[in-house]
């Protein structure tokens, strides 16, 4: 019994105890975490206490909720009360948040059992976890390769069966890209569907929390639990997709567009392109209508993103000033203390993005860089709107290649940024998108197929994802 849906059903019916489920997963963590480093912090004792509370509810005849006894790993940029929350940064080392993120509250209220905080690229800036201040996470499928990022620890935790479910955050692909690299399902929901209260901010107009799971239906289970309006997040929306669980696989008559700018371009590995084409054929065989579609402004997404996200980050990360929490390095006055603290506390990539963002927002350059990127964002939204007049969903690779080796892209920051080329447009548009594992490359590493949908199109997106999952991906 492996899936989250099965575990929850067994715990709710009393067939299994939540404690035995937690113990089994903690034992798996104990056996492989030393080599994988998916976690910054494993909360074994708290997990067992939460599991016991679930079992007590079952014993009293109460329903512990849809995640009854299901272990869930949490990205370490989600605030957990009294539990270290670091963003994999020295600047937050040792900080104990005084409150829980809304998603953490919802997971535990639904009977989920939090097993630990997963590693990430520092402040979610990166595509490999190599930017973590506490060392990288290794890909459980091949320890010489990166798990992707920034939510690499959350993807690896599911791939290594440390937990059937985990939560990550996706600003430019940080859920979908590691899901693809680790051979699991990863979902970036519509902007505003999941409350971000307690998610430590990177780029606020792009960040969105979403699930990792081994199956599409498990991801639906977790998204159902965490979505919904939250008065603590003024960017959370009232209309949310609900009841995605078991919501069908029928794709007959659906119009599916294969995005040429994300599929037929230089840099996309031919094996990856072939897998996406096989997925398209599988959908066609199930009755969908598949055509190629051009979304022209997508080619500018990367440049727009790498101005907008750093600009927002430079503002959001101003809060790490050595005053209210985290690291302080002393100085003779406040300016010196601020500057010394930030230089000592931030790693190279975070400094690079703060510098880039500050420059893009500075007097004389604001209009040419930041405002221009915001105009490109409008073009991308318009192009997607036109595409969705003709298609129900769009299809593309999740990433240009399978998981790369450690060190392959650390020398040239821009080569690392190119890992996000297929995923960024959805964040700029605020649309949902998800990655589904579909076959292996000749390096035996998983390939991910991305399904994109219009805002609040989660239901049709999950249906297509299930149809792709059912087709299996074997060449």
């Amino acid at each position: 019994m492996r899936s989250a849906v099965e575990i929850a059903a067994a715990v709710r019916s009393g067939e299994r105890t939540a404690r035995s489920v937690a113990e089994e997963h903690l034992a798996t963590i104990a056996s492989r975490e030393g080599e994988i480093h998916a976690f910054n912090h494993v909360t074994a004792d708290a997990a067992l206490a939460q599991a016991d509370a679930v079992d007590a509810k079952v014993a009293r005849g109460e329903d512990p909720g849809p995640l009854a006894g299901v272990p869930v790993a949490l990205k370490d940029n989600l605030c957990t009360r009294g539990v270290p929350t670091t963003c994999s940064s020295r600047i937050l080392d040792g900080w104990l948040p005084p409150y829980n993120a809304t998603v953490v509250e919802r997971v535990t209220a639904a009977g989920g059992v939090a097993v630990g905080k997963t590693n990430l690229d520092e402040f979610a800036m990166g595509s490999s976890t190599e930017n973590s201040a506490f060392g990288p996470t290794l890909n459980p499928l091949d320890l010489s390769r990166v798990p992707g990022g920034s939510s690499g620890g959350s993807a690896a935790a599911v791939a290594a069966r440390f937990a059937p479910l985990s939560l990550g955050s996706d600003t430019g692909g940080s859920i979908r890209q590691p899901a693809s690299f680790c051979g699991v399902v990863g979902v970036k929901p519509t902007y505003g569907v999941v409350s971000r209260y307690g998610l430590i901010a990177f780029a606020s107009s792009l960040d969105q929390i979403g699930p990792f799971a081994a199956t599409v239906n498990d991801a639906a289970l977790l998204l159902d639990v965490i979505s919904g309006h939250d008065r603590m997040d003024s960017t959370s929306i009232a209309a949310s997709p609900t009841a995605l669980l078991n919501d069908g696989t029928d794709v007959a008559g659906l119009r599916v567009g294969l995005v040429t700018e994300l599929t037929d371009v230089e840099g996309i590995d031919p094996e990856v392109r072939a897998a996406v084409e096989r997925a398209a054929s599988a959908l066609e065989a199930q009755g969908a209508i598949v055509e190629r579609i051009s979304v022209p402004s997508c080619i500018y997404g990367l440049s727009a993103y790498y101005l907008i996200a750093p600009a927002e980050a430079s503002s959001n990360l101003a809060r790490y000033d050595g005053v209210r929490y985290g690291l302080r390095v002393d100085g003779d006055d406040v300016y010196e203390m601020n500057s010394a603290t930030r230089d000592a506390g931030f790693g190279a990539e975070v400094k690079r993005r703060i510098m880039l963002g500050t420059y893009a927002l500075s007097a004389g350059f604001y209009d040419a860089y930041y405002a221009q990127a915001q105009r490109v964002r409008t073009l991308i939204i318009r192009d997607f709107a036109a595409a969705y007049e003709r298609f129900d969903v769009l299809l593309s690779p999740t990433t240009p290649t399978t998981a790369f080796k450690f060190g392959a892209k650390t020398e040239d920051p821009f080569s690392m940024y190119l890992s996000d080329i297929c995923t960024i447009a959805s964040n700029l548009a605020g649309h949902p998108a998800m990655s589904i594992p579909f076959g292996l490359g000749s390096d035996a590493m998983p390939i991910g197929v991305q399904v994109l949908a219009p805002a609040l199109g989660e239901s049709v997106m999950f249906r297509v994802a299930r149809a792709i999952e059912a087709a299996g991906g074997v060449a």
Partner: protein
Amino acid sequence: MAKQSNEQVSITRSDVEHVAMLARLALTPDEVGEFAEQLTAILGHATDISSLDLDGVPTTAHPLPVTNVLREDVIGPSLDRDEVLAAAPSAEEGRFRVPRIMGEA
């Protein structure tokens, strides 16, 4: 409106030092040189959009058609002051303590 066009972007050491001051980062001389080189390269890639003629295209700051979110002004629980101050590097008499802000005479 001045466009950057396709001209070669070049970020100098003094540009980096100025931006580092704005961003409150006390960079080492090595970091200054490294960032000058890397920011030049990264912003060089952005010329594909800085050279686009987008006059008349409105900017998008965030993707939701939502503005001015208000709620009822009701009293609710807030974070415990002592718990919050316990996380601060330095606190005194219920407040955050910092080094001097203005020069002393």
